[in-house]
């Protein structure tokens, strides 16, 4: 059987794709900020906190890292209303993704903090720097440099993982694909176009991270 | 015909010329010590001989095989040319016996029992027969290097290359390795060794080759050349290493 590819119908629905793209970008941006914030707090708690704090953070990290994102999403969006907590799809998506990224970045950032040798901290201390100053001037940049590649690839993975929110009807790029599919029946074309769009996003993200890496570390 | 014949060999790493028209002959049964500053190209020269490094110009003939020709069976050549490295390079996941018998078994298809006997004989030559079932990380540096020599010997090479094989060893372990080399010299093995051990070179080598700026700068009978260098470069070098 012969099949003629028809991308015209798919591109005719570009407004859907654009709207979806905007939500995907928004989700990624918000999640990165919130998730890295959670991760920074988690890492600090894990390295500098008391035994109980450390245990609680470890429990959070393991719970998130050993369960699927989509199940976490379903639990928040479909499950929580059952006990009286309701979110719209976009909020549930942002919340879940942030908590998810928070767990992964806790581990990455912790590894960064622990990569700085104790002698460096002692050197800073012995020069009369305060704890915060030691962190700010001695720990922060070297630690960030160590974990930067891992962090960058985690953030690209996160951007791709946002596609899962389409499954709770959050109208992201992937969701736009299902809408166009249901209107045009151009299944192959639409998912191919969307896959390429994600690929382009991933490449742009990587390029931006590489640029940022250059700006941050080129002269250090 | 010489066992090793290098003529006008040029080797570059990018813009850096490491061997600059180097020429050298080594006869059957000869022991040649190659000396020179680090960066003078002496290790590279050795590595070109068994084809570990490709060259850009010149010609290398070893044991009747042109090394630098496309289509040369380097594997066949390497079975006849053993090399021992500065950093031993034993296989850490294999026992001493397996380290030695790996190549005889998979390259020459020697049966297992016979291969073990081969390992035993090779180890006896380096004085480590009792270590046949040991693992590399259980051995001292000197012992590891002797196993590495045994590993090469088990292939019955026509020529042995030694690339600064005592440089990574603690001083008190150098002697045991050099003793093995002297023993091999007595048995008539053709050997080329890059070394910093001038006393050893004078005692054991027939000929000393001084490399400078990627060229064979000066060569001659060991004792004579080391005692009365012809070129100021060798003289400077010798006075630096002999303090």
């Amino acid at each position, binding site marked *: 059987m012969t099949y003629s590819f028809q991308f015209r119908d798919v591109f005719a629905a570009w407004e859907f794709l654009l709207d979806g793209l905007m939500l995907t970008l928004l989700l990624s941006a918000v999640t990165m900020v919130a998730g890295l914030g959670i991760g920074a707090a988690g890492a600090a708690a894990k390295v500098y906190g008391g035994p109980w704090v450390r245990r609680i953070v470890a429990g959070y990290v393991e719970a998130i890292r050993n*369960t699927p994102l989509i199940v976490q999403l*379903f639990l928040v969006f479909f499950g929580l209303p059952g006990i009286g907590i309701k979110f719209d799809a976009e909020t549930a998506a942002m919340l879940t993704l942030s908590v998810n990224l928070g767990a992964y970045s806790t581990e990455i950032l912790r590894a960064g903090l622990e990569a700085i040798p104790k002698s460096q901290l002692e050197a800073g201390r012995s020069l009369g720097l305060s704890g915060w100053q030691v962190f700010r001037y001695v720990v922060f940049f070297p630690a960030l440099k160590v974990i930067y590649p891992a962090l960058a690839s985690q953030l690209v993975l996160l951007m791709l993982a946002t596609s899962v929110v389409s499954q709770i009807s959050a109208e992201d790029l*992937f969701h736009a694909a299902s809408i166009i599919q249901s209107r045009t029946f151009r*299944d192959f074309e639409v998912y191919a176009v969307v896959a390429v769009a994600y690929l382009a996003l991933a490449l742009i993200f990587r390029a931006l991270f590489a640029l940022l890496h250059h700006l941050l570390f080129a002269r250090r | 015909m010489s066992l090793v014949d290098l003529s006008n060999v040029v080797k570059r790493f990018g813009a850096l010329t490491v061997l600059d028209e180097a020429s050298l002959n080594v006869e059957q049964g000869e022991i040649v010590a190659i000396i020179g500053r680090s960066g003078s190209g002496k290790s590279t020269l050795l590595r070109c001989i068994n084809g570990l490094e490709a060259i850009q110009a010149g010609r290398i003939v070893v044991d009747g095989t042109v090394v630098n020709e496309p289509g040369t069976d380097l*594997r066949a050549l*390497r079975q006849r040319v053993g090399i021992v490295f500065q950093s031993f390079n034993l*296989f850490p996941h294999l026992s001493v016996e397996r380290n030695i018998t790996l190549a005889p078994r998979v390259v020459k298809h020697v049966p297992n029992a016979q291969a073990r006997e081969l390992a035993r004989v090779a180890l006896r030559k380096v004085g480590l027969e009792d270590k046949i079932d040991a693992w590399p990380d259980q051995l001292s540096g000197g012992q590891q290097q002797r196993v590495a020599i045994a590993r090469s010997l088990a292939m019955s090479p026509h020529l042995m290359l030694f690339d600064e094989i005592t440089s990574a060893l603690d001083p008190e372990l150098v002697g045991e390795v050099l003793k093995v080399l002297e023993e091999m010299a007595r048995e008539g093995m053709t050997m080329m060794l890059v070394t910093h051990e001038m006393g050893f070179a004078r005692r054991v080598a027939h000929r000393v080759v001084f490399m400078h700026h990627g060229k064979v700068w000066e060569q001659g009978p060991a004792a004579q050349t080391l005692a009365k260098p012809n070129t100021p470069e060798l003289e400077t070098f010798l006075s630096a290493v002999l303090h």
Partner: protein
Amino acid sequence: MIRDLSYIDVLYLIAAMRWTLALTVIAFLGGGIVGIVIALLRTANWPPLRWLGALYVHGVQGTPLLAWLFVFFFGLSIFGITVSPWIAAAAAYSIYAGAFLGEIWRGCLQAIAKTQWEAGASLGLSTAQQLRYVIVPQAVRIAIPPTVGFLVQLIKNTSLAAVIGFVELTREGQLTTATTFRPFTVYLIVAALYFALCFPLTRWSRRLEGRLHVAR
């Protein structure tokens, strides 16, 4: 028909784990074969082979797994091929796992010092023999911890097959929710079951890694 959540439902959920595991095994086998090829391409001497491997890895790692599932499940039907969720999932997961395993294994191959290749070569071993007897046995040792770690990722990601109607643990959870209307409890149980699968593997992977560092 709505009924209450009972222990039978929990048993069904537990039983559904076998499809999660089956899919994981298939993905790991398929991905393993692709991964070996990718690792070899990425470490090849001839640059075009390396580029081909890099193209594959960047392509797959730059697109969502969900997209591969949809392309295979919905997309191929346009060619008149009816694709069962099994086939679509097996294909999509092999492609996906192959890219990640290939990268992990490439790293392990490259972690073996160049001098080990040279030592093999100078004894007359062919490139294939150097790989087989010298490099791979050493690379496998360091590959086990990250490979087990990736297995956890794979188990979790099999949950995405639910969206093409592949009945595994997550899909079974959706179905149970639809009949019992107890989504919170059901998804909590589903999450707990995934945790029960993944957490031991996570711990194991970490222990293996610790042992490797001690051994050096």
